[in-house]
């Protein structure tokens, strides 16, 4: 009888790309369910289309570059890109918008830079920014969140599918009936029209913190993010940096004048803050590497999110903030290279 020999370590932690990416996807499931509950089933179709085009783009590029196709598809990294794109887009989005974002993200932002591990820019955010600039109209139609007290209509499952495939709503259902200004839009236009934040926030659409529906999706995203933190798949520096970068300027300005500035709680729980802090900014490839660099990187993203939301012309600044800090990442890494162990002794020895 043959006994198999086992050498230490007896428990090998699985840290391959596929298992990490898979856990990131699991962490997003509660948030997807919350999104479906509040904003309708649209995100599921976005997810399917984005996944389809991301995987197709990945496979085509690997084939053209004569690399193993199977291995690239099995590492789930294209699926994570697809999931983040689906989250970033409004739940009613025609398929060609999703496809453009997915293909640009995978083909241009990822594979032309050398594929997984080399991309300078976050593929999902690069794809999203391209469609945000190319199809501004489609990206402004956010469906209203499910709520009890306002008479609002929402498209049925079939109507959602039809809109996703053709870009046409049924004739009895106009965009005015199904879409609403997002809380970020409302606060931005309200503040620029000289209304106080409390006045704007009295609307039942604004919920408790970040807008009805939005805050719950954010909570579930944060929950998934905390799970990833506990599983040590992401590290704490970037999420902390992003949240601090957003909270410090918004908290300070709110403390100075609570009338003309929105509350930090609102910024924290609306839009894509939580998604950015836990899922987008923490992309290990396009983020800074050293712990100090990660803090700076996260803080820069948080601050840029606040700057775009408060002073820019776009409603949410997550994608721009991430791309801007992506392009600063090589410089941050250059400036925050950690000291080599024993380096100081070597310097001293050299001086002597």
């Amino acid at each position, binding site marked *: 009888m043959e006994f198999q020999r086992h050498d230490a370590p007896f428990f090998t932690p699985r840290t391959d790309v596929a298992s990490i990416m898979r856990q990131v996807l699991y962490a997003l499931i509660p948030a997807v369910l919350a999104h479906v509950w509040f904003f309708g089933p649209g995100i599921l179709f976005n997810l399917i289309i984005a996944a389809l085009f991301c995987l197709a783009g990945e496979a085509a590029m690997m084939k053209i570059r004569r690399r193993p196709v199977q291995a690239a598809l099995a590492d789930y990294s294209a699926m994570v890109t697809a999931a983040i794109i689906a989250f970033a887009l409004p739940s009613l989005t025609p398929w060609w918008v999703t496809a453009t974002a997915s293909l640009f993200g995978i083909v241009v932002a990822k594979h032309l830079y050398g594929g997984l591990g080399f991309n300078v820019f976050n593929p999902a955010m*690069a794809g999203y920014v391209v469609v945000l600039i190319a199809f501004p109209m489609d990206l402004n139609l956010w469906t209203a969140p499910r709520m009890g007290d306002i008479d609002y209509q929402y498209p049925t499952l079939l109507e959602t599918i039809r809109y996703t495939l053709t870009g046409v709503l049924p004739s009895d259902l106009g965009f005015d009936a199904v879409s609403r200004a997002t809380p970020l839009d409302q606060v931005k236009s309200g503040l620029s029209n000289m209304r106080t934040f409390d006045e704007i926030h009295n609307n039942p659409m604004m919920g408790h913190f970040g807008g009805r529906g939005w805050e719950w999706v954010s909570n579930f995203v944060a929950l998934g993010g905390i799970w990833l933190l506990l599983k040590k798949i992401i590290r704490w520096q970037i999420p902390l940096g992003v949240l601090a970068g957003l909270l410090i300027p918004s908290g300070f300005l709110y403390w100075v004048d609570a009338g003309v500035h929105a509350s930090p709680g609102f910024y924290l729980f609306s839009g894509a803050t939580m998604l950015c802090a836990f899922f987008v900014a923490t992309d290990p490839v396009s983020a800074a590497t050293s712990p100090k660099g990660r803090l700076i990187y996260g803080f820069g993203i948080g601050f840029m999110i606040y700057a775009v939301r408060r002073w820019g012309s776009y409603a949410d600044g997550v994608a721009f903030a991430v*791309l*801007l800090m992506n392009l600063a990442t090589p410089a941050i890494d250059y400036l925050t290279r950690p000291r080599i162990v024993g380096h100081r002794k070597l310097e001293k020895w050299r001086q002597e």
Partner: protein
Amino acid sequence: MTDLILILVGTVLVNNFVLVRFLGLCPFMGVSRNLEAAFGMSLATAFVLTLSSAASYLLHQYVLVPLELGYLRTISFILVIAVSVQFTEIMVRRLSPLLDQVLGIFIPLIATNCAVLGVALLNVQQAKGFVQSVFYGFGAAMGFALVIVLFAAIRERIDAADVPRPFRGTAIALMTAGMMSLAFMGFSGMARP
């Protein structure tokens, strides 16, 4: 004071000369292969840009306008820029041989940087005062410096990446410049007076 800060934020980030106005692309692509060269180029450009925007303002205000020679604006500005580039070169060589060694080859290149002429012409077009003109030039130079240093750091990283062969070198650099430009769209709407 506020308008000067707005001019700085506006020229460095919102209307960045390279990524938003697409001026000064030649040195941006040409001298961004390594970080030190990019840093030296941006220092030299900062000096020349500030100097030439002041000089061209004075020339326009006190020579061209009184003599009603507005149509000579472009050619006289080119002259002013060429002179200030020469002046910088001579000064650097005399005062600091070390700096000359670092910046030497870049200084004549600045004369062909269209951002320098662009700043001078835009200053006149927007009818700015002397202090504003100088700040506009300085801000444009700072924006150029910021972008070219970040770009050089990215290019050093891309050089080590597994980029598909048809896209190596200038092609991927141009695409990166495009992506940076996309990212800078996020600043739109900021720093409005």
